[in-house]
């Protein structure tokens, strides 16, 4: 399990989630993104292409982060969901709450 943050040349923060996003590590992801928000970043992509599974706490932290980023005038996009994760977002109807792109590159292009 690992979170990676990097900025592309236009200033978008790309967050990679390797392994899983669950109740035991969600606060670490939240803090990393809140720190970047505090430092002035406003556009974020979370790339799940290396993510095995996400539990409801992981989904909840994404909802919370999305709200905080929007409150600061920013935008959060999700990318790289495999078929199972896409289904998870659809059955919880969170696909209606998030901008979801097929790949991180497509998410970056959509800003």
């Amino acid at each position, binding site marked *: 399990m690992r979170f990676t943050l990097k900025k592309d040349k236009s200033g978008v923060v790309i967050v990679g989630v390797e392994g899983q996003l669950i*109740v035991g*590590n969600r606060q670490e992801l939240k803090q990393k993104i809140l720190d970047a928000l505090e430092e002035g970043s406003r556009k974020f992509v979370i790339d799940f292409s290396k993510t095995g599974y*996400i*539990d409801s706490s992981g989904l909840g932290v994404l*909802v919370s982060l999305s709200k905080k980023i929007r409150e600061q005038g920013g935008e959060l996009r999700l990318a790289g969901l495999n078929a*199972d994760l896409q289904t998870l977002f659809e059955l919880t109807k969170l696909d209606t709450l998030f901008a979801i792109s097929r790949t991180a590159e497509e998410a970056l292009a959509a800003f």
Partner: protein
Amino acid sequence: MKLDVPSDLGMVGDAVELVATHLPPGTLSPRRISFNLRTALAEALGNAIRYGTGENPARSIRVSVEFGHDFVRIYVIDDGGGFDTTQVPDPTHPDNLEREYGRGLFVIRHLVDEVAFNEKGNGICLTLRAG
């Protein structure tokens, strides 16, 4: 397979991996193990630790796993007072969509083939079948 998991949210991922990697090959498809089983077990453990035992590391959660050639059944039991599983709001209702919490049971019910609770409401049984 039986294990006692300390009431520590940081232990959920390791406990899930321990169960998932010790199932006999062929019991469930790799995809169902890697997603459905791992996600549902993480949910059940997270609920038991957070709500059942109050994240008190002196307490623990009992996990028991039974399996046959085409099914896996996982019991997750805490020593808490239990809760009424019928009183959980629908997390997909528009009023609840932006809430951070409240999706756990909903997710479990969609990922496994059968969900059962004990009478007290402090134990859940997850059954996943092959196919």
